[in-house]
């Protein structure tokens, strides 16, 4: 994926291994004997969760950005700390800078060697972070405290996240802001009642590529958005699960080597659709392809294996197998368990993915058939399987990016599936105005068939679903500093905070805030730098403005809850005109503002989900009970 290199937002200089002593200064500034640092570090990882069973060649190589590493590995962005809380012991940390390991892509995959486990969580988490940073065009910071009512963490904490590959003997894995890290559990399947696993088999959640990506994604989203973890409506927990699953699945499928073998063995039957007559497509119709159309779809089989061995639920399987018909659309009104509900969203995005993949590979099949090939019986020839895998992987990578970018186009609080649909479409339009493969159409159709609608959208059309654009030049934020891709200084950040808060007050009416309802904070602002398809560099900033009201539960329920109103702003810094840099221009105002009905909905939702009662005796547990707890969510309670 060479294009991922065209822009790096966080070039980590291997400080520990700085160039050897500066020798006598040479006059020749063009020559050096120094060996350049590699740009990437290849590392072995399992391609599939080994507890699923034996796979031949269950191995792939992940390329992560090179950095020098201490034993752990301990790098700039992740510290792998292998402390086992159940056994009360450390396991020996792997030293990936050991020359023997540098020669061999690290340790070979092994369930028995904890050092390989450390390597794998490091590799996959790093890969996930890098893909997100590439998609977002900026560096991601880790959250170090729940919100601004908590004391700040020590300096530097936001740079590095902890990964505990064997934190506990439990069938669970979760991102925990309290541990400033991700806890992976392991467990021994019962000898008598092993469920899906082999009796007595030890299952390590940290050996599942998908689980690592899933958890890292939770941490990334939490780092980006301060209030996103507040379960203010029935979609929030489901959204987080779905989003993390989408990241995991698309990242997994972007590894071609995962797909080639499967494609070849199954005759490329990614779905039934392709096996239908050419006529159907020749008519120019663009039928939405539904993932469930074939239970043989190998990608679906791969997708549904997600976390199953590690004790996760199998709701993904049923969602992907549920037809996206008017009947299937009913599920959106009945499914409320977060994983089940989230699976509807995953299935919708996957439907769109298959549609686009189908459009992109259709010609390959025609050529193959025209040459006398038969996809119905024989194995596909390797070159064709390879091409198909390339398309599937390229499309997966694109969908990963689309989903990641949509994050910046979501309102800052109270996310719904409908908001996410609007964010997906708007982000895609914004980054890729031309859309030859009709990705937006595919997304729209897929969501419609799954019954996911956007609030306040008058119709199911692109125009109605895009967030409305602010009239060019009608709202500007003078004085905002964009800095460069490596981030802002503390002084610049303080300055931007002041500018944005003042801006929010001044333009409260235009933005839709009621100034009297409370202070408007700017919990985050992230400059972004991206290269458009036209080759231009775009400089912009995503800003959250959030107003918090303390609202009583009332009616026999003591206490208050935080009700947040907010907007996400997308602000562009246009290039200088006539030697003058124009004031930054607001392009989008993506709102989730105060409405009495929304207040009532949030109140009911908190009460209904048992968050109205404090468990701590002092009555002051901060607002932690108004945040998702992934430990419980992933344990299914």
């Amino acid at each position, binding site marked *: 994926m060479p294009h991922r290199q065209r822009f790096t937002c966080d070039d980590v200089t291997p400080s520990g291994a700085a160039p050897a002593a500066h020798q006598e200064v040479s006059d020749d500034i063009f020559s050096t004997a120094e060996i350049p640092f590699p740009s990437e570090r290849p590392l072995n990882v399992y391609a599939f969760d080994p507890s699923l069973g034996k796979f031949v060649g269950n191995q792939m190589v992940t390329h992560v950005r090179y950095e020098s590493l*201490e*034993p752990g590995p*301990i790098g700039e962005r992740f*510290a792998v700390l*292998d402390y086992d*809380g159940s*056994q009360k012991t*450390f*396991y*020996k*940390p792997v030293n990936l800078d050991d020359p023997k390991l540098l020669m061999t892509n690290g340790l070979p995959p092994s369930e*028995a*060697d*904890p050092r390989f486990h450390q390597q794998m969580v490091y590799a996959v988490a790093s890969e996930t972070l890098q893909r997100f940073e590439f998609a977002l065009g900026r560096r991601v910071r880790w959250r170090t405290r729940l919100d601004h009512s908590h004391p700040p*963490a020590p300096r*530097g*904490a936001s740079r590095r996240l*902890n990964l505990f590959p064997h*934190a506990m*003997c*439990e*069938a*669970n894995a979760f991102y*925990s802001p*309290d*541990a*400033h890290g991700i*806890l992976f559990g*392991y*467990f*021994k399947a*019962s*000898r008598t*009642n092993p469920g899906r*696993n082999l009796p007595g088999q030890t299952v390590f959640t940290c050996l599942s590529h998908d689980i690592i990506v899933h958890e890292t994604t939770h941490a990334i989203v939490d780092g980006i958005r301060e209030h996103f973890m507040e379960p203010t409506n*029935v979609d929030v927990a489901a959204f987080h699960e779905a989003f993390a699953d989408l990241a995991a699945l698309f990242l997994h499928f972007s590894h071609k080597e995962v797909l080639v073998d499967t494609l070849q063995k199954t005759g490329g039957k990614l779905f039934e659709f392709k096996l239908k007559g050419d006529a159907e497509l020749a008519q120019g119709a663009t039928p939405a392809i539904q993932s469930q159309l074939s239970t043989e779809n190998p990608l679906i089989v791969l997708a549904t294996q997600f976390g199953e061995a590690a004790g996760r*639920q*199998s709701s993904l399987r049923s969602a992907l197998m549920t037809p996206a018909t008017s009947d299937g659309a009913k599920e*959106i*009104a*009945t*499914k*409320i*368990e977060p994983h*089940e509900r989230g699976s509807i969203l995953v299935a919708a995005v996957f439907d769109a993915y298959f549609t686009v993949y189908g459009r992109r590979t259709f010609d390959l099949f025609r050529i193959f058939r025209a040459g006398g090939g038969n996809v119905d019986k024989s194995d596909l020839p390797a070159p064709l399987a390879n091409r198909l895998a390339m398309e599937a992987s390229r499309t997966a990578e694109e969908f990963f990016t689309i989903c990641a970018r949509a994050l910046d186009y979501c309102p800052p609080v109270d996310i719904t599936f409908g908001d996410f649909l609007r964010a997906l479409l708007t982000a895609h339009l914004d980054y890729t105005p031309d859309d030859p493969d009709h990705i937006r159409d595919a997304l729209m159709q897929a969501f419609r068939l799954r019954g996911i609608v956007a609030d306040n959208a008058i119709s199911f059309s692109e125009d109605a679903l895009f967030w409305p654009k602010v009239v060019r030049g009608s709202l500007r934020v003078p004085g905002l500093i964009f800095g460069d891709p490596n981030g802002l200084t503390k002084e610049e950040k303080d300055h931007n905070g002041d500018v944005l808060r003042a801006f929010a007050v001044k333009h409260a009416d235009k933005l839709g805030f009621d100034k009297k309802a409370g202070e408007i904070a700017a919990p985050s602002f992230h400059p972004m730098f991206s290269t458009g398809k036209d080759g231009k560099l775009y400089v912009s900033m995503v800003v959250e403005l959030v107003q918090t009201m303390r609202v009583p*539960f*009332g*009616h*026999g*329920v003591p206490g208050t809850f935080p009700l947040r109103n907010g907007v996400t702003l997308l602000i562009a810094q246009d290039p200088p005109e006539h030697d003058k840099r124009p004031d930054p221009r607001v392009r989008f105002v993506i709102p989730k503002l105060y409405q009495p009905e929304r207040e009532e*909905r949030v109140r*009911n*939702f908190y*009460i*209904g989900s*048992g968050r109205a*009662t404090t468990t701590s005796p002092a009555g002051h547990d901060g607002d932690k009970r108004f945040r998702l707890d992934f430990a*419980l969510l992933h*344990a*299914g309670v």
Partner: protein
Amino acid sequence: MPRSRSTSATSSSPRQRKPAGSGTARKQPTRAADAAPAPAGAAAKGANGLRVRMYRIGFGDFFLLSVPTGSGASHILIDCGVHAKDLGSMRAAVTQMAKDCGNRLALVIMTHRHADHISGFGSCADIFAQIEVERVWMPWFENPDNPKAAAFQASLVAMAGQLGRQFQMRLAAGPDPASEQLLSMAENITGGLGVAGIAANQKALNVLHGGFKGSQPNHDYYKAGDPPTLPPDLAAAGLTADILGPPIDDALIGQMTNKNQQYLAGATESSDQPERSKPFANAFRGKRDDYGDKAFAPYGFDKMLRMLEGSQPDILAAQAQAADKTLNNQSLVVLFCFGGKNLLFAGDAQWGNWENFLYGGAYGTPGHTQLTARAQDILGKIDFYKVGHHGSANATPKDAVKAMRLGCVGMCSTQEHAYNEVPRAPLLEALRQRMNDQLARSDQIAAGTDAPANPDAGPLPKAFSAPAHQLFIDYDF
């Protein structure tokens, strides 16, 4: 079915507020429950003679609804159980109830299988063996012919048993009020183990399924919306009933069964010796010094370990609470209508059960954010409400309170210090206001000398009557 008149008298006449319990009172036909010679048009006579009796046994539900019919009072028993804070008065109360109904119940309703709603059937099986019962209503979860429901209940009970053992292990390590409460929660599902090793709740269920006198009753298993079958004399007297809960969701049930089984598969491991669950060979054991200083920065090693430990919630506790809620949400919610009066018995229904009735579906999903017209209509006409789940906050949604008719009457069977925050004072206060102070609590009367009335509960409101030295509070329409 012909019935014997001679034993149908109630022990006391609420209208006369006369102390009862004397032998004569039993023989004497009273005007209260079995007065009205009810023709088909009973409604014209209003609800005169309709009575709700709440027995005081501790933390548990035990209600007797007496309906005047053409041939005297006919009785409906709604739950009979106590679990936490057992006052020891169950046996006396069941004996009293048997007397009250003349050993004949037209209908028994088991709202759900928590011990605090059914234990009396087991512990007083001998008394129930002397009582004739015509019909039994239970939630659809209890239908032995529904394999999904049966599997679900079995897995829930197995899980509760497993959880109970875990909490017992915790308690063996030392006293801990939190664990005691969790154990109590788990044992509410199983009933705890009886002498013969049979879970007490199973024994109670056996009685409900076939431990009554003579020919066994017909069993009905209902879900929201089912048209229920009433015994003929009650129907003839003009009583009608609607089933408002529990909702049915096969898919959810299937998934939760799975979840429980998955949990059980994992749970067996916790009893393993640490040695056996060692994941790696000793050669891989490491120490803190294997890491550089950078590894634990910026928090530092000790803080880091504390953070790691502190970030792991008590999953077992959460499981126990979830199981408790699941069972409460199985509650059969029945709306009775008699002589123009509407009585709502909500069992221990919590949000998941209520929301289906209130909003017509899962709250917050498209089209389910407002009270349905039907819910508004029903609650707006309510005359009597059996307060859900002993007054806990989650069992009477505020939207339901807001929609209840001002001045309706409520009864709440409760006992303090059985569970945290039950009963929930602010909720009871809100209800009391809604009800113009016509809210009775079971702990407003004494249960013998050992269990005096709870002074914090306040005096019994005037709308109710409670003869001295008796174990019940009455409300007469």
